[in-house]
């Protein structure tokens, strides 16, 4: 029972509890903020595993970008203060059944799998320089092509969201 373990359980508790609140609450703002907290928790888990670069990315993009965007759109659709309507009971029951069934099945599979022995002892720091070099290289482990493709995707998303959301001026 070392500190890593306790910290991990604590952080995963944060993640799961806030995620659950976000899913079950009827106030939309509360859902957004709980999502934010859950995402911060996930960033904490990343930090626990020395993935600082990813943790930073998580905070910057997810928390600082996506959740903010969600909050803006909540404002834009004038729904900030009302209570959210509930789905019909049957629907919720069905969803619950599927989710629980899936979770049980997955857990059972995971617990009965023999994962190969790991050696996380070699906790080498995540070096940003290494990430950068590998991203720009085009040999066997290089990710240049996906990098370029994703840049296209981002361009498309940019143009697309402007086009979709633009308000046409009435002449």
């Amino acid at each position, binding site marked *: 029972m070392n500190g890593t373990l306790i910290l991990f359980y604590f952080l995963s508790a944060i993640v799961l509890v806030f995620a659950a609140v976000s899913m079950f609450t009827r106030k939309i703002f509360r859902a957004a903020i709980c999502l934010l907290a859950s995402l911060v928790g996930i960033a904490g888990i990343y930090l626990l595993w020395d993935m600082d670069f990813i943790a930073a990315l998580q905070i910057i993009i997810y928390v600082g970008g996506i959740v903010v965007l969600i909050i803006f759109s909540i404002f834009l659709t004038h729904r900030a203060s009302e209570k959210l309507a509930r*789905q019909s009971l049957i*629907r919720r029951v*069905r*969803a619950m059944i*599927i989710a629980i*069934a*899936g979770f049980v*099945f997955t857990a059972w*599979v995971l617990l009965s799998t023999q994962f190969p022995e790991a050696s996380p002892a070699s906790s080498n720091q995540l070096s940003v320089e290494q990430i950068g070099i590998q991203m720009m290289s085009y040999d066997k482990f290089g990710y240049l092509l996906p990098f370029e493709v994703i840049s296209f995707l981002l361009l498309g998303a940019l143009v697309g969201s402007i086009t979709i959301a633009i308000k046409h001026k009435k002449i």
Partner: protein
Amino acid sequence: MDSYGISSLALVLLPLLSFIILAVAGKHFSPKISALIGTSSIVISALLAFYIAGGYFFEFGNISGAFTKQIIMQFNWLQFTNDLSINLGIVLDPLSVMMLVVITTISAMVHIYSINYMQGEEYFERYYSYLSLFTFSMLGLVVSVNIFQMYIFWELVGASSFLLIGFYFTKPSAIAAAKKAFIVTRFADLGFLIGILMLSAGAKSLDFFTIIERLTTPGSAYLANFSGSFIGMSALSWTLLLVFIGGAGKSAMFPFHIWLPDAMEGPTPVSALIHAATMVVAGVFLVGRLFPVFAISAPDALMIIGYTGAFTALFAAIIACTQTDIKRVLAYSTISQIAYMMFALGVAGWGADKSEGFTASMFHLFTHAFFKALLFLGAGAIIHAVGSNELKNMGGLRKSLPITHITFLIACLAISSIPPFAGFFSKEAILSSAMHSNPMIYYVGLFTGGLTAFYMFRLYFRIFWFKKPEVHAHNHEVHTWFMNVPLILLAIGSVVAGLIPFGHFVSANGEPLELSIHLGSVVLPVLVALTGIATAYLYFARESFRPEQSVARFRLFYNWAINKFYIDEIYLFITKKVLFNLIGRPIAWVDKEIINGAINGTARLSMKTSEMIKPVQSGRTQTYAMFFMGGALVLAAILIFKFV
């Protein structure tokens, strides 16, 4: 091909050509031109027929003492096996040459007659085109080499007779009569077709002469094919009986006679051509063609033919005595006379002393064509003058229709078999051959001869002698010479045709046959005929009490006879009440409710199923996602448990 070959081909095809021209372009010609085209083609065919007859009987037909068949041309149309094929061809033998002469002559007379009779008709060219079609079909029938070719032309004859009977198509009775004729003969032709199929199955050939040869040599393998028996008669007898049924339909034997009286709805020249001289003898011709097979290998079928013919002759003669429509009397007379021809064939056999009946039947066919056509054409002239078919509107026409009167009298004398007119010789031959083979049929024939004389002279005296004050007495005939000339020519034929030594030319096996007249056996029929004439004179020449007295005495029988023994009503009952109600309606119900219902039910089922499945496409994203997730989980489970 020599000149006879070309002329026989031309003879058959000229009417076809005339039909095609008149059918396609007839309405652009004036009536005169169409009459010219139609009549000239038939007259040329008639002359060619005489030419061929002269050549056949006097030059090339006689080979070593017997007249044999000469196949002029043959064309292989459909080959089924080595032996079995449908050929189209022209054959000349005594039977077909005689028929060619008869058909073309009578047809020529009718064509000339119609120039006056049908003058002013709205569909004049169409009439002539139908006549040409009919003549072509009949000619093709008699020169057929192959039994299937004959069947083709048989049906064509039926179709053209439908067109001609229903010529006045605006009259419902004419349409009904045409339908009746076609349906009754078509129904009988079913028997013919089955008979053809059975014959071809057994004898393995469709060629007439091959069939005759194979089925008449005793002990041939083909006869063994027919060896099964059914209710006492061999399979061959049943086959030939079925073929005879087809012939009985066309020749109006009982019980298929019902169409012939109704067919009088057609124009009178049509009745003269079709229902006196040509189409109705097709059945007799068919039996004559297959006569060797009948006589040698299936004599019991021949016996049935004999009895049917004799019964029909008597039956029709009784009805004819009571009818009041001139054309109906002549129609029943035709039925009776054709029945004479049939039973003459029925009492004949094979061999020198027994085959007299065959020649007698053909002889009667020949002479009957002349005097029956003459009777019909004369009746047409009378109807034309008086304006009505009924006897009660006619009387005392001696002065106003002299030529018609004389020719009608000649025809009546001929049909009553008074010497020296044509009918005497042919009917004598029939009665003498019957006397040698089957005395009962002889007595029936004798009695019917008396009835024939009675009703024919009843007609004659009533029309030409019976004084009716209001009938006009001026001469109609000076305007209608095209009608008079055929009457005169046919009257000459009725007088001299009997004097031809027919047996020299036509006999069952081709060898000349002497038709002798024994004075002893001649006396009785002539006496019976004269008695009939005298009775008719007493009853009908003047106003007399005798007809009503006889009618009153035999009231019940008279009613039966004047209602044609209710045969038509029986047929109507069977078709309407039995066939339509018991068989037709349930089958129609099954078709509409069950079969249609099944198809409609299938359609309804698929529509209902689609209605049930439609809600799956509900448009709700979350439902889709749920199914997706569930499916993915199931798939993952299957894969994991199968492969891990």
